[in-house]
Every structure is written in structure tokens, then in C-alpha cells.
């Protein structure tokens, strides 16, 4: 991983007010009210985003989910990084280096 990837995984993620999320049967859907775009989240991605929004860093979430789903931590970290980058690119999350209140 590049240094910027490490920085991203140690940052804190928040969901801005213009994004709403709802759970369907197996997926969750995030809606960007500013762009009008919908984004589907499979159950793992939805669980990742929930944990990030609760205040955990990417590293912390990767450790937690690797343990929960009995998957290699590096693999979970890679998937989590891809998710955060995709969500940030679409304006669905904001990245901060300080833990939110």
C-alpha cells in the first residue's frame, strides 16, 4: 500500500447530510441528494460504512471485520480502501484526520 492509502485507513469517515441511506432486503442503498445518484452497497460494504460512521478508523474496521468474517486482514483492508475511495469520489463520505465528537 502507498502512504496515502495508509493515511486514508487511519482517517475518520463521516457521511454528509446530503447523503441518505436505507436498507433493503439484502442490500443498502445510499442516495446523494445533491447529485440524485443512487449507489448500491452489498451487505459487507454496508457493514463497513456503518462501522466507519460509528467512529472507527479504516484500520480498526478492517481488523474487526476480518475477525468477524474469518478473512485475511490484508484482503479486508484492500477491499475497505477501495470502498472508501469509491464513496469519497462520489461524494458519499467525507474524510477527516480527527476523530469526530
Amino acid at each position: 500500500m502507498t502512504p496515502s492509502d495508509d493515511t486514508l485507513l487511519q482517517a475518520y469517515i463521516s457521511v454528509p447530510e446530503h447523503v441518505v441511506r436505507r436498507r433493503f432486503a439484502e442490500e443498502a442503498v445510499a442516495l446523494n441528494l445533491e447529485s440524485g445518484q443512487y449507489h448500491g452497497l452489498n451487505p459487507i460494504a454496508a457493514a463497513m460504512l456503518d462501522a466507519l460512521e460509528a467512529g472507527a478508523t479504516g484500520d480498526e474496521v478492517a481488523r474487526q471485520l476480518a475477525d468477524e468474517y474469518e478473512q485475511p486482514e490484508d484482503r479486508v483492508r484492500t477491499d475497505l480502501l477501495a470502498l472508501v475511495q469509491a464513496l469519497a469520489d462520489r461524494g458519499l463520505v467525507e474524510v477527516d484526520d480527527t476523530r469526530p465528537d
Partner: protein
Amino acid sequence: MTPAPTERTQAAREHEPWRSRAFGIEIEGSFPAPGLPPARVAGTARPTRLAVVPGHDIDRRWLPGGGQRLLAEHFDDSPQPARTIDHRAGVGYRLFARNFGLAFVSEDGDEVLCAPPEDEPWSWQRFLVGRILPWAALLRGRELFHASAVTVGGGSLAVIGPTGAGKTSLAAQLVLRGAGFLTDDVLALEHDGTAIQAHPGAGIVSVRDGERAAIAAKDWTRLGSELGYSGKSYIELTREDGPAPLRAIYFLSRTARSPGITAVEAPDPRLLLGSTFIESVQTPARLRNQLSLCADLAQAVPMFTASVTAGLTAADLAQRMLTHMEALDT
């Protein structure tokens, strides 16, 4: 010359104010409107006011400044679009459909002005009940789906499918088998805090020639009264007066491999979001409401695929659906 008493009475009746209910909103008007029967019980909600006005009254309200064109549809080689929708923030929506006239819907859905051509009410009001009133209902917070719906045993079932899938034929056959008619083609839904309610629309169905031929003459007269014909037969039916809790959704499919009704265990969000009506209104409030209602549907309402295969008539499928609904209750 003083009109004869019957003429005067009829003329006066045609301008008597009436109050009806459709697509989840109270409506007030004063022109003949088949398919919008007077509400049996007066509602307390603020009504959407309907009026028929000259076209220049609508354009005087709209101009200057124009608005943003949201939609322009061409159905032939004419340089002029057959349908247009324009929006002006803070004012409302201007809807035009060739052969049906011009309409204005205020930004909050409280006021609707129609400037129809010289035509029978049932004919030009296809635009009113098929597009304009649903638009007003959407602006007033209802979510709309491309669906027909009937009531069965105290609840309702919705049939979702694209144009031509057979929604109307199925609804007609369900009504002939004792179901109560709620709506055809446009269904307004609302979560009232306890259940998702399916609201009645206009009491009119448009039946294709093929389906009409499949309905026996005695059943045809039982279905309702014929208003007219324009490529399809337009029938006014007795319609439910109020909403009914939604108990099942059936997606019509012509591509399923085997006939019958199969459960949809985990509805794809795209299936529900793609079945909503009126894509042109993309305000944050509408989008939020749409997502919320679709998620509620996915979690609360059983969903099924009803496959329409060769040889399976609308009558057959209607009977299967009624049997299926009875089994859901037990």
C-alpha cells in the same frame, strides 16, 4: 332567450363544485370529470384545486422567464415535440401533450389549471388522470408507481409492469372476479406510520381490443360503462373510495422460464426504484421520500413474480392470483 329548465339544470350541474379523492389527495373542481366520483365521506385535508382555463391564462402565469425544460418527447418527424414538461422554481410545472392540451401544476401541487382542446371530457382527461393529477399528488408527498391495483379481502394488491405487460387486462379480470377497483397504470402509495396504503386513482381503465374480445358481452357490461374509444376502449368503473393497506406486489414478467407465481425473496432495489412514476421531479424531498418508501416496501410487503407465458390468459392469471392471495391470508 332563457334556457329550458333541463338545459339550465344540466349547465348548472356541469359547473357545480365537486370534491373527490384520487392518488392520495383531495381534489376540488367544477367541470365534468368521469372517473373522479364525489367522495362519499368528506375529507379534512387541504384539497388540490382544479380549474379549466384558456391556454393564455396558463402562459400569462408562466411568462416571462420561461423555465427549465425537463422533458421533450417526439413521436414523429414533426419538429415540435409531442409532449413537453417545463419547470420554473418557485412557480411550478407546465405540462403539454399534443391532442390533450396544456396544464399547469403549482410547485406545491395545490393548484392545477387545465387548458384542454375541444373534446369529450373522458378523452382530454386521459391527460388529467394519467399525468397531471399524479404530478400534483407527487408534489404533495405521495410516491407513485407504474402499477395497477385492486382490493381483495380488506387489503390491496398491486401489479407492477411496463406498458403493454398486461396490468389493465389483469385488473379488469380481477374486478370481474369480485376484487374492488383501485387504479390502473398509476398507483399512489403512502406510509401512514402503520402500513403502506394504496390509494385509489381514477375510476377508468383503457382496454385493448384483444382483451375486450376475450371478455364475454355480459361481463363487459358488468365491468362498467363505456365512455368512448380511441385505439382502446375507455371504461368507467366503480372505484374504491379510500385507501387499502398493501398486502402484496406482483411483478408481471414475460421472460420468466416457467409459468406461475414465484416469491421474490430479496427484492432488488433497482426493481422498485425503477418502477416509480415521474422521473422528472428530482427534488431532495422527492428523492428522499422515494427511497424511503421503496425500502419500506422491500421490508414490509411480500413480493412475487407473476409470469405471463404464451397460452396463459389474463383471466387464468387473475384466478391464480386470487387463489394465491387467499393462501397468503391463511
